[in-house]
């Protein structure tokens, strides 16, 4: 269980995140949505200790973030940011094997390699696992990073815009993998996502941020609603039910 209590972050005099409190439902996919600059990524980064908060606390399974041993925390929670550039030349397999570092401290056992192979297969990268990252397309690279996070095998997975650079086929594929992880392994997944229809079709819970504050949160049905969305994005939405999915139309 992840609980956020009143976290804030200032850059200079600007409040990027202001007094955000959240309880993330366990075993579900939670989406963070909101306009650009709403503070979604900053909240995610603070929850995963990538940046320090100015005020407030984050509790993971009842223990405050700073009280955790860094290595133990890496077995509980993983984070993937949207931009990843690495200066070293790594193959996909090398990269994914880094995901086992919290368990093996660099000396991978047979069991660790099993996780690595599974993660690579899960992301359908087995054929190209020996290719170097700089030889890959944006989508393949994104999947390689996701495979690394899978190999890390944490209960909580935080993803900052995982669908960046991906075409429709791979976006859907990734979201289905995330759903599968939640259903089969009872993982808790939090994603920052821009495409409202992906949020609508694949998430269980939605948190809407605007100007550094949570302005709405609730189940997907509660948030995917014309009045609520208008308040968040300041534009008109039509919502149609297509084959059981709530699809937002906003191309005016």
């Amino acid at each position: 269980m992840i609980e956020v209590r009143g976290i804030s972050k200032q850059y200079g005099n600007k409040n990027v995140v202001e007094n955000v409190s959240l309880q993330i439902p366990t075993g579900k996919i939670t989406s963070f949505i909101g306009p650009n600059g709403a503070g979604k990524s900053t909240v995610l980064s603070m929850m995963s200790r990538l940046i320090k908060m100015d005020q407030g606390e984050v509790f993971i399974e009842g223990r405050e973030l700073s009280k955790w041993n860094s290595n133990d925390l890496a077995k509980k929670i993983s984070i993937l940011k949207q931009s990843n550039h690495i200066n070293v030349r790594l193959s996909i397999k090398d990269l994914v094997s880094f995901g086992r570092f919290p368990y093996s401290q660099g000396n991978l056992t047979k069991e660790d390699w099993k996780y690595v192979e599974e993660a690579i297969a899960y992301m359908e990268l087995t054929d190209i696992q020996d290719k170097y990252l700089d030889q890959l397309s944006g989508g393949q690279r994104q999947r390689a990073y996701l495979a690394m996070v899978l190999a890390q095998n944490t209960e909580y997975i935080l993803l900052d815009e995982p669908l960046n650079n991906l075409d429709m086929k791979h976006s859907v594929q990734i979201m289905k993998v995330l759903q599968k992880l939640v259903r089969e392994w009872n993982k808790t997944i939090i994603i920052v996502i821009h495409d409202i229809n992906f949020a609508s079709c694949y998430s269980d819970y939605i948190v809407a941020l605007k100007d550094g504050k949570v302005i709405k949160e609730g189940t997907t049905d509660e948030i995917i609603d014309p009045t609520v969305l208008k308040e968040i994005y300041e534009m008109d939405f039509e919502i149609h039910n297509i084959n059981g999915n709530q699809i937002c139309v906003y191309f005016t």
Partner: protein
Amino acid sequence: MHNKAKLGTLSILAILLVVFYMVIDAGGNWDYILPRRGKKIFAIILTGAAISLSTMVFQTVTNNRILTPSIIGLDSLYMLIQTGFLFVMGATTLTMMSKNVGFVISVGLMVLFALLLYHFMFKREGQNIYYLLLVGLIFGTLFQSISTFMQVLIDPNEFLLVQDKMFASFNNVNTDLLLLSVAGIIAVTLYFMRFAKYLDILSLGREQAVNLGVNYDYVVKRLLIIVAILISIATALVGPITFLGILVANVTHEFMKTYRHSSLIFGSILISVIALVGGQLLVERVFTFSTTLSVIINFVGGVYFIYLLLKGNKA
């Protein structure tokens, strides 16, 4: 293994060069020649190892392949300390003073400076590591200017003494200092072993390292302190030669083509021994001591550096 084969080749080459250096032109005077040359070789291996290890670590921590630890101003500080001694105490006191004392003071001041610099830079949260380098760079320039100022004021004869220190040289390494340095470098290297496993992860950048459970700020600060101590000892032992590091680190990356620091660091130490012993052979046999090793290293290093920049420009 591919890496092992490469490391094996390097080891053989290094050993061959060392043996060649030891026995060339010996003329049967083994008792005289072996200890003398052995001492020099030992100093070469020691400084080569210290500099290549610290440059490798420094480049990984900063995620930048064209930086050397001298950027935080340790080289210039060394020159300032040497000039300062001479300026304040004069040549007679300096030549009378025990070399050990001078060595310990130099190393002490350099490490102290690095610690203070780190302390003030890391105290403020969210400081970029490049900010630290920039401040170090400015301090380096300041030290250099003060040294130059003192150098123009002192007696030309005394200036010769300073000039002697400006270029690294293995020709008159002091045995006492050598023992002191060995102790220091071994102690620091043992401490480094605790953090060695993090280097591969650190090369992925800060965010990935934190995600994988590395206590980033703690580890990076320790590693930077280790770098500062190694550089200080190597510089105080033979003179400013950190340019060697950038040359060796880049050749190692090109040659080893791996991300694993266990291979990279070992390889870089071997390459630096090859470069230094080869260079020393050139100094002694081809140039017959008319130049110093650091001049050759700086020349080759400079040419390689320009090549790197041009290559990077094209890509």
